[in-house]
């Protein structure tokens, strides 16, 4: 197989083309924070949390392929500052009130804030108004807590094959919808499999009636399913 040489944080690494910066970094024990990325799903570069620096350019590690001679910096002061600002923007554009979230303590966004050292959100909070949809018999979506990562859209489409979730609107009005923007309980395509619940990184899509202690999620399930299917 063709092999190429890249440098990550000054360390020489031999790898092969066709892999993303994130894959190569992870395979070599180099941590790059992510949010919309989930093993088993197509990467879309939605959240920008995984940015790295390549010759003064900031690229998303999950969607950028490695190339021969590439010099990648994952943890410079500038990268860290941008990453922190990106996480602040995610907080500012939603209503992430951790104190009464069923996913408090089990939320990837909350963990990211700790990881990137977010002291406060320096961008004015938007405090948007969103609709909660509790019409599904077993699940609910609280869009106040949605970071628009699209994991639900991809898990439902790519793994379950139901395509219940999609994005509607543009710009700051974007939101996830079920079917053609009907209440989830009326969405005919939903099989009730619960994959969207497992992959949602925050408390946006949750199981009804679950307490904080019961709300653990298992996003790895999609990678396991994808892996088993690849063996036909």
């Amino acid at each position, binding site marked *: 197989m063709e092999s190429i040489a890249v440098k990550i944080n000054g360390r020489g690494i031999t790898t092969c083309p066709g892999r993303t910066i994130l894959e190569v970094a992870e395979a070599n024990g180099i941590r790059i924070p992510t949010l919309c990325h989930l093993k088993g799903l197509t990467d879309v570069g939605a959240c920008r949390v995984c940015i790295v620096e390549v010759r003064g350019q900031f690229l998303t590690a999950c969607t950028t392929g490695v190339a021969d001679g590439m010099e990648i910096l994952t943890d410079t002061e500038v990268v860290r500052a941008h990453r922190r600002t990106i996480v602040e923007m995610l907080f500012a554009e939603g209503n992430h*009130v*951790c*104190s009464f979230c069923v996913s408090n303590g089990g939320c990837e966004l*909350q963990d990211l804030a700790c990881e990137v*050292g977010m*002291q406060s*959100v320096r961008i*004015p*909070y938007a405090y*948007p108004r969103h609709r909660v949809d509790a019409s599904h018999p077993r699940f609910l979506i609280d869009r106040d807590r949605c970071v628009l990562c699209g994991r639900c859209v991809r898990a439902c489409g790519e793994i379950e094959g139901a395509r219940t979730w999609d994005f509607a609107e543009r710009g700051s009005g974007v939101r996830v919808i079920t079917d053609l923007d009907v209440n989830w309980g009326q969405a005919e395509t939903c099989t009730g499999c619960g994959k969207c619940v497992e992959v949602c990184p925050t408390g946006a899509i949750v199981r009804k009636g679950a307490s904080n202690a019961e709300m653990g999620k298992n996003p790895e399930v999609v990678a396991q399913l994808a892996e088993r299917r690849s063996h036909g």
Partner: protein
Amino acid sequence: MAKVRVATMWFSGCAGCHMSLLDIDEALIDLAARIDLRNSPLTDLKVFPEDGVDVTLIEGAVANEEHLRLVRTAREKSKIIIALGDCAVTGNVPALRNGLDADRMIESIYGSPTTSNGALPYDVVPQLLGRVSPLAELIPVDYFLHGCPPPAGLIAKTIFALLDGKTPELVGPDLKFG
């Protein structure tokens, strides 16, 4: 050595952060020996000292005109401001009303037949602001203590670092909201 002058304030919050401050248990004895506690919901001193303080801890979000006046006074007269807890840091629960009409909320909550003449008591109760704000949207804040409430250990660690003349290091799990 002159004692460090400390004030605490309570805006739109549930008092849980002040409870958490009292939860530092026996460290309170050490703390009491090293600080001069000025105005605070925990003391009878209700006026911010004219000659200022070293550190002010503020619990709660800025939700009414009185808070707005006090937060500016606190900044003017304190060397260090600490946002104590999620309401002060993010707006948290009090900010849930942002985007709703403040007057209509007052009307629906307090304008019921239980108020004798239907008038709202604005001569004694400060007017609500149209929008609830975290402290840092209005004044520069020096340290942010996350948590609802911030764990007692985090409060103690921060205050004692400052008393020892060190910069409190707030990292990793210290930064967890909720």
